[in-house]
């Protein structure tokens, strides 16, 4: 037996938190055990601990090559197609002009999908799902502001739900909206498809209205809240997305209280940093701007959980496979029927991974697609030998692509990762402090 390459340890009172980044197992160990693991003198472990550590991958058989194991897991996940997922941009137009918009406030691009284009997009989605043999299809209506094109949203939802039913597939739909257009009619329409809503609120009215504004400068907070209540009353799921930076961080906890008092306590909370060049990532895990913001986000999630909100960001620290940008089962499709590997890459032509072939309704893919699909952090030099790679994955492929011209690079934020993981593990361990060798979240993948 040998010590896993992916163990990390942090001090905790007079003992240590032991965490395995590849398996997600957490233990509290004394300094003696720590030393045994550090020096690899496994014979000194005792039978009970040896068994426990073997079960949870803290120690592994000598012949196990954990680097290959992770590389393989990563590669497999890229091509797993049980579920096909897409962002469908039904329009690039937007009725807002948020101060930090990365899409140019709906002014760079305004095109909306027409019926013909929507038909083609639907056909493409069906073909893709079919060729992936996926048992479920999940779509997110995206924009711009998707509710500016409700006839097409309805058409897409209706046709795809019908197709999924006919072909015995699970169907789920989500709308990523600014929340200002959730009229009774729209909510009722989408309720037929059990559509969940992802709405951005950047803090209490005071700060939100400074940031998320209509084109004429009026604030949107009150309209959004009216909409959220309508959505809640229809029994649909709500996720509130909060984009955090140094200007609004003080206003977030009061927002939690406001939501709670307003009867929106079942809302799922998602807190993301604001980037200069791109919005917060849609699949959690990468976006770690700097230590300070990270700490802020972590603290805010903690506060939300304390108020009995569920958070999108998992409480546990678990090893990760590739995000959707690297999965063959994922695309963003825009009104021009161009394909992208992430919803934050449009509308820019040079970011496109290909387009829908009008004849066959199949994807015609280009070298951007290749670039994203071929990325594997275990083939990148410093990541290969980093014990944090199963958590960090070498950074966000989109951010890497945008800053380095290829997704096959890395952005190293190891100190930030150490910090946030340490913080999270402390919270987890404190919850379980009654156990001796506290096994907090030791379930294996």
């Amino acid at each position, binding site marked *: 037996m040998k010590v896993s390459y992916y163990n990390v340890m942090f001090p905790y009172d007079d003992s240590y938190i032991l965490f395995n980044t590849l398996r997600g197992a957490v233990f509290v160990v004394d300094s003696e055990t720590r030393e045994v693991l550090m020096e690899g003198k496994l014979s000194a472990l005792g039978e009970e601990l040896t068994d426990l550590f073997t079960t949870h991958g803290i120690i592994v058989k000598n*012949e196990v090559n954990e680097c290959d194991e992770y590389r393989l897991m990563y590669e497999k996940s890229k091509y797993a197609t049980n579920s096909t997922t897409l962002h469908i941009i039904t329009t690039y137009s937007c009725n807002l002009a948020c101060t930090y918009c990365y899409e140019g406030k709906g002014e760079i691009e305004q095109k909306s999908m027409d019926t013909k284009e929507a038909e083609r997009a639907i056909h493409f989605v069906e073909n893709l799902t079919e060729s992936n*043999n996926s048992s479920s299809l999940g779509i997110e209506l995206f924009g711009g502001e998707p509710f500016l094109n409700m006839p097409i949203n309805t058409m897409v939802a209706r046709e795809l739900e019908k197709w999924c039913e006919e072909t015995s597939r699970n169907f789920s739909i989500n709308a990523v909206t600014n929340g200002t257009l959730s009229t009774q009619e729209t909510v009722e329409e989408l309720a037929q498809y059990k559509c969940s809503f992802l709405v951005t609120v950047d803090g209490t009215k005071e700060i939100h209205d400074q940031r998320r504004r209509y084109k004429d400068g009026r604030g949107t907070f009150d309209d959004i809240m009216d909409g959220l209540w309508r959505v809640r009353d229809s029994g649909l799921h709500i996720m509130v997305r909060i984009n955090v930076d140094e200007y609004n961080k003080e206003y977030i906890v009061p927002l939690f209280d406001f939501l709670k008092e307003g009867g929106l306590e079942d809302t799922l909370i998602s807190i993301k940093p604001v980037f200069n060049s791109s919005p917060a990532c849609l699949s959690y895990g990468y976006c770690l701007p700097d230590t300070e913001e990270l700490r802020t986000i972590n603290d805010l999630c903690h506060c939300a959980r304390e108020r009995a909100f569920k958070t999108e960001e998992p409480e546990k620290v678990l090893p990760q496979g590739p995000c959707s940008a690297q999965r063959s089962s994922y695309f963003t499709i825009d009104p021009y029927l161009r394909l992208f590997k992430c919803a934050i890459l449009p509308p820019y032509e040079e970011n496109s991974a290909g387009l829908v072939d009008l004849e066959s309704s199949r994807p015609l893919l280009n070298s951007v697609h*290749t670039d994203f699909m*071929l990325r594997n952090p275990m083939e990148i030099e410093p990541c290969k030998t980093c014990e944090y790679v199963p958590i960090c994955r070498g950074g966000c492929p989109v951010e890497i692509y945008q800053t380095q011209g290829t997704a096959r690079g890395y952005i190293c934020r190891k100190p930030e990762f150490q910090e946030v993981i340490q913080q999270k593990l402390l919270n987890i361990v404190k919850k379980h402090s009654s156990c001796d060798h506290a096994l907090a979240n030791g379930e294996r993948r």
Partner: protein
Amino acid sequence: MKESRYNIYLLDEKEKKGLIYNSMQRSIVHIDDEVYNLMRSGRIEEISDDVTDVLKQGRALIDENQDELQILKIMFNRAKFSALSTGFTIIPTHLCNLACTYCYQGHGDVMGKTMSTETARRAVEFIKKNAVGRKSLGINFYGGEPLLFPDIPFGILEQIKQFTDENGIYLSTSFTSNGTLFTEEIVKNLKDFEHEVQITFCGSREVHDAVRVDKKGNGTYERLMDVISLFRDNDIRFHIRVDIDQENYHTISSLLEDLSQRGFGGLYIGFCPIGKDICYTEMERDSGRIDLVSLTRLFKVAHDMGFRTNPIYIQNFIEGCAAIKDAFLAIDPDGDVYKCIAAPNYKEHRFGTLDESGNLSNVNYDAFCSWTLRDPLLIEECVQCKFAPICAGGCALSAYSKHGSIMSPGCDEKDLGEIMRTYIMLKHPELFEGCSYESIVL
């Protein structure tokens, strides 16, 4: 604009007819000798616009910045990790009723285990778990002789069929058998399943009866002919494999003639070289390996006699073999799991053993990762090879026995060229009307 690295050129110099077969796109573009010469000498800008368009359509010419190696890598990985289908080869027993002189397994004397009821149950559980959510499931039975104890394979199939019926999974089965043990009853059972059977000949009656013999030394040729009649009468889907070496090579035409005379003319037939790459023991007969040129000629002969055949299956020459795929595994009588069905004699390739609940235990991650991560584009020879999209690095086990590592080529580029030429000519005879086989150069 540049030339695809996966263009394979054929030209009949006399008739001035040629074609480009693109091994990545599987496309064919008809060309004349002038275009042939321009393409081969890198003067693509001199090709006329309309011809260029056709060449672009067939992807014989591609955009300057396109990296075909990278596209190929994604193609391979998609195929490798595809969740659409899964397949298992099961060895119900290592024992065999025959004692063929060239048997690479030592005719059941080297390994002699038979699968217990308990192991069969574990195998069924394992297969079910792996088949959940797939579109199709293939079960191949291999041996030894898989029909020596027919209750084992059919017992397994019955249990699995119930599961696949309930879960809407398409089940198919195949038997790799010496053919001698098929009875009315087995044939009847087989018809309950989507099936395919392979039986093996080894030359004319005289040679076959000297080589493929039972334990007492009796030949099996006439018995196989009876079995073929039985198959025919019962609409059993089957094909014939003929093992070839230097000694029996010249007797193959009399085998084919005999099959034809008996009315078996339209059968599917394939020819495989007898090799020593993966032998469990020293073979008793070592009559020399047949060269590929001679071997592919047999396909032509069979084709011309009205048999159905396809040379591309020599040496697993089609996207590697199933063993390169993530979801394809082999189970031996001990419940040991391998990637490759010919590997059970190499314990270092064992992935693990099936436990009571049908899970893989005692996992050898080293073997598991190295087989699953085998990537022809990490093998230098394959990176340079224009047949890579079709061959995918060839037989991994053969590579291992030749080079000591599965991360090496299991084939030979020169041989592949010969196979491709025969393949294209048999598949598209109309393209070479009026050309003689010998006048066509690669």
